[in-house]
């Protein structure tokens, strides 16, 4: 009771805009995870490294005098390069997907340290015209709105581009590759080429998200991507569980699905903020996230198993 009394509802309310903005930024990364995990059927662990790569590249370029918007383009390209490496390890060298991702992720740790010269680099909002910043949220209503419009704009434009892309011939080829490699090859699709392509696109988005997030929190850190894959998966799965029924069978169903991934990321951060507000130990956050993801990944499997048993008895 005493604990409940000590909780300040206003503090929770105040933390919400930050959580919302953070969810939007990580939503971009979750879209990248959606591309590999759901469309390509490839559990890509590169993202833990490529997120920090995007952040490191953006921060170092901004510190070197580049426009923060242009720096994001290079964060995207850096992410694509990381995806390319994982793709080649998997397709050209035959290394299993998960291991290929882990190898790239581990090597990116060193690469990121080299990019930054040390384990973290700050980029102060006082000195640079950052695209978005946590500071803008607390400053005034005007700047707060600017953060939201910017990050919402990023998400909406990305969803629109992805919606278009996966409706093109190339996008179809990626989806066929992810769904049924035998069918794809029989229809003349190079599954290797399209696997690499999808990994590059996915990690490009993750790098972009890293570049934005580094600006948002005012620093890039070599550990900023640790556990990113789990957050991305959580966003994808929360989006599917909460909005899946709403999206199915509609016109533009795919666009709704992509938006639900971003919504999933926002819900994830709101829940995390509530957990922190309840003064649950923050050390346990990652354990908590992992359990959420494990439970929701297990539900569809357990459902089919249960149904299978029912049929066998009937």
């Amino acid at each position, binding site marked *: 009771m005493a604990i409940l009394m000590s909780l300040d509802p206003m503090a929770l309310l105040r933390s919400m805009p930050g959580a919302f903005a953070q969810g939007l930024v990580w939503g971009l990364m979750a879209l990248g995870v959606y591309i590999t995990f759901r469309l390509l059927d490839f559990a890509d662990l590169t993202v833990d490294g490529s997120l920090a790569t995007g952040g490191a590249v953006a921060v170092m370029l901004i510190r070197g005098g580049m426009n923060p918007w242009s720096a994001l383009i290079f964060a995207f390209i850096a992410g694509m390069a990381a995806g390319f490496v994982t793709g080649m390890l998997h397709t050209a060298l035959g290394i299993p997907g998960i291991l290929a991702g882990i190898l790239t992720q581990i090597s990116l740790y060193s690469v990121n340290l080299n990019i930054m010269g040390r384990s973290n680099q700050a980029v102060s909002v006082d000195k640079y015209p950052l695209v978005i910043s946590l500071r803008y949220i607390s400053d005034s209503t005007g700047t707060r709105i600017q953060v939201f419009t910017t990050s919402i704009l990023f998400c909406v434009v990305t969803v629109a581009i992805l919606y278009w892309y996966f*409706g*093109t*011939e190339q996008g*179809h080829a990626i989806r066929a590759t992810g*769904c*049924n490699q035998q*069918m794809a090859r029989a*229809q*003349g699709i190079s599954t290797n080429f399209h696997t690499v392509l999808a990994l590059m696109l996915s990690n490009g988005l993750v790098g972009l998200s890293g570049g934005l997030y580094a600006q948002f929190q005012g620093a890039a850190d070599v550990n900023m991507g640790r556990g990113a894959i789990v957050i991305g998966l959580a966003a994808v799965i929360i989006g599917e569980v909460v909005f899946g029924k709403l999206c199915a069978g509609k016109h533009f169903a795919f666009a709704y699905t992509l938006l639900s991934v971003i919504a999933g990321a926002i819900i994830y951060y709101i829940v995390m903020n509530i957990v922190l507000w309840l003064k649950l130990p923050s050390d346990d956050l990652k354990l908590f996230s992992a359990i959420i993801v494990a439970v929701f990944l297990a539900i569809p499997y357990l459902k089919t198993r249960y149904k299978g048993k029912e049929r066998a008895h009937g």
Partner: protein
Amino acid sequence: MAEMLKIDNIHKTFHPGTINEKHALNGVCLSLDEGDFVTVIGGNGAGKSTTLNAVAGLWPIDSGKIFIGGDDVTRLSEHKRARYLGRVFQDPMTGTATTMSIEENMAIAARRGESRGLSWGITKKERGEYRRMLATLDLGLEDRLASKVGLLSGGQRQAITLLMAAIKKPRLLLLDEHTAALDPKTAAKVLEISDRIIAENHLTAMMVTHNMKDAIAHGNRLIMMHEGKVILDIRGEEKKKLTVEDLLHQFEKVSGEEFANDKALLS
């Protein structure tokens, strides 16, 4: 008549040098003329499907050559060879992308052998064409263009896979026991569709089957395989007069064994 397929003395050994070593193909030779529709029979492990897979390029062969319509495809990878081929598989799950719609699957097949760029994956004009093609199947699929293929039955999927295989008028159609996983009624329907599609498009085709009656009733040629070789090649008038008993007798004569396959005897 032009030669459409030439298989020239191909060999393939799986897992060489291990306890699982298997000489799957031991010098297969076969030549198909344009418009030939050959049925392929033989016991388990005779090399029927392996021959089709060698033509499709699933793995490199150890020796020999394969020509399709005069082009040497021996060293081409599977997806590059796809431009010459239409393929339907035994498992109805294999031929289509289940998470994609009927029209998307067909649009993917319609771009077989072409480069895939950033234009729309499917156009309005195509949709009308696909609707017309699906209507010829008489399965009610023409009104379900946007349905996911995963929702369809095995027979419906095989019918769509057949349309997809024929959509680019391939030089060679490969049917790998494509009715074996279906119930008898559906199998008959899919066979009927296969016959029609082959005739309408004047396709050259190879059809592997376990069913001797089907092998006799369809196509203008019949080959029998045994231990990775073609041991019998019957065509024209001679094939028309063929009976299941003849085939069993021939098999025993050529191989010195009984045709130990219940499925073939019972059907």
